């Protein structure tokens, strides 16, 4: 029960009328364009779905969990996703009253 690129390509074939090769490529390029924008330091705002943003995290002290040895966790840039109000509301509504995973 997982949505994958293959399933998205099938939808583009059925709903947009792309041929199977085009559909597969369109899914690939969709995610590649988002990755490229983020790689270039540009945030991505997909209205109705959510925003991908970049955060610069400073170096902080850490430990090797295996050896217990202290070693700094280097400064890095990471991606964060913030679901839109609309997506959050739809998910919340669909699961009202349910608690188990």
């Amino acid at each position: 029960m997982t949505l994958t690129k293959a399933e998205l390509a099938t939808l583009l074939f059925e709903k947009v009328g792309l041929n199977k090769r085009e559909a597969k490529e369109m899914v690939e390029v969709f995610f590649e364009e988002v990755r490229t924008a983020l790689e270039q330091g540009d945030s991505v705002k997909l209205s109705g779905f959510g925003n991908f943003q970049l955060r610069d995290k400073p170096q902080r002290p850490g430990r090797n969990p295996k050896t217990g040895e202290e070693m700094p966790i280097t400064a890095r840039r990471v991606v964060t996703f913030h679901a839109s109000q609309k997506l959050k509301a739809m998910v919340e509504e669909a699961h009202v009253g349910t608690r188990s995973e």
Partner: protein
Amino acid sequence: MTKSELIARLAARHPHLVAADAELAVKTILDAMTQSLVEGKRIEIRGFGSFSLNFRPPRVGRNPKTGEKVHVDGKYVPHFKAGKELRDRVDYGE
């Protein structure tokens, strides 16, 4: 980059398609991803990342205006975890 810029970039990379197809493709992909999460079904895009739901347990909150205690129901919230390729590409070069 906004949704319309993404559509324009996809259209530019597929000159044989009409622009409306790129727009419908983006809408179809985002609608399917939304629907998947609404159904509690995870999304796994190799090299990009995965989307799933996290449960926030019920808690007692306070009305910030009146200070009155209120029960807040548990709920599910969407969560994204970046995949290895995306993580490596956005991080500074080694």
